[in-house]
């Protein structure tokens, strides 16, 4: 074993590794420079609903498929509602207003998540009521205590089915 040559080879490997690491760092910096993103005001709102909508905007702009986006958006709605159950009502309504086609999916996912985590049914009822009254173009119905009782009598899987939930609301509507 020729020790000086071995040391030289080891030193060369260390230099190669250091240079590679340095190049990787520059690559990260270059990528940051090339990523264009619109600036926002320093006093931008940062409530749970606004954060959720911002994340949803990001998901919409991502490379996900439409089906993946639907699921991801519903999960974001549920996460925001779970992070601030007192604002679940407003969060669900804000998302449903912006994405009317997802109103039922958002409502059922929020309700399902809040119920699963032991949150009060009052919050769930308020969420559904908000979604149905604020998103009139899509559902055009008003939920009542009676219709909520009808919904809650069904199984969890039924409540988590958007089409079924919508049908129940329509059938229970005084209109």
């Amino acid at each position, binding site marked *: 074993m020729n020790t000086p040559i071995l040391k030289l*080879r080891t030193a060369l*490997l260390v230099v*190669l*590794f250091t240079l*590679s690491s340095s190049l*990787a760092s520059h690559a*990260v910096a270059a*990528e*940051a*420079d090339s*990523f*264009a*993103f*619109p*600036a*926002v*005001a*320093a*006093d*931008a*709102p*940062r409530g*749970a609903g*606004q*954060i*959720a*909508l*911002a*994340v*949803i*905007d*990001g*998901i919409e*702009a*991502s*490379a*996900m498929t439409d089906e*993946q*986006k639907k699921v*991801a*958006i519903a*999960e*974001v709605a*549920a*996460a*925001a509602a*779970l*992070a*601030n159950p007192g604002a679940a009502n407003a969060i669900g309504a804000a998302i449903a207003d912006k994405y009317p086609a997802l109103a039922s999916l958002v409502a059922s996912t929020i309700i399902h998540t809040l119920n699963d985590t032991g949150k009060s049914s009052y919050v769930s009822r308020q969420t559904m009521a908000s979604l149905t009254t604020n998103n009139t173009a899509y559902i055009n119905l008003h939920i009542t205590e009676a219709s909520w009782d009808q919904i809650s009598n069904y199984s969890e899987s039924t409540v988590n089915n958007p089409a079924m939930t919508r049908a129940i609301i329509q059938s229970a509507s005084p209109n």
Partner: protein
Amino acid sequence: MNMFRDLFITTLLLVSLGMPFTVSADVVVDAVIAAKAHPHDVAAIAAAAARKDPGAAASIAAALSREAPGSAASIAKAVATVAPQAGAAITTAVIAAVSK
């Protein structure tokens, strides 16, 4: 024999360099602070870091939102764009970060 050993070590080194590496949220925050990055640039930096390590997307977004709460929404959006599968985790982490 030495030639094979060198070839093995070099291959191992090149493979390890090609593997995705983890990005520490604290390191990203330190870099942003050290560079005195403009708040409007923080979102782009967060996205670049999350693209390198999607698994750390939520922690990166939360850490930077804590440092620049006025840009929390734009940070959340930029990170979600490059790591959409972490959308729920990003939402939870950023809301928690700006609520404290």
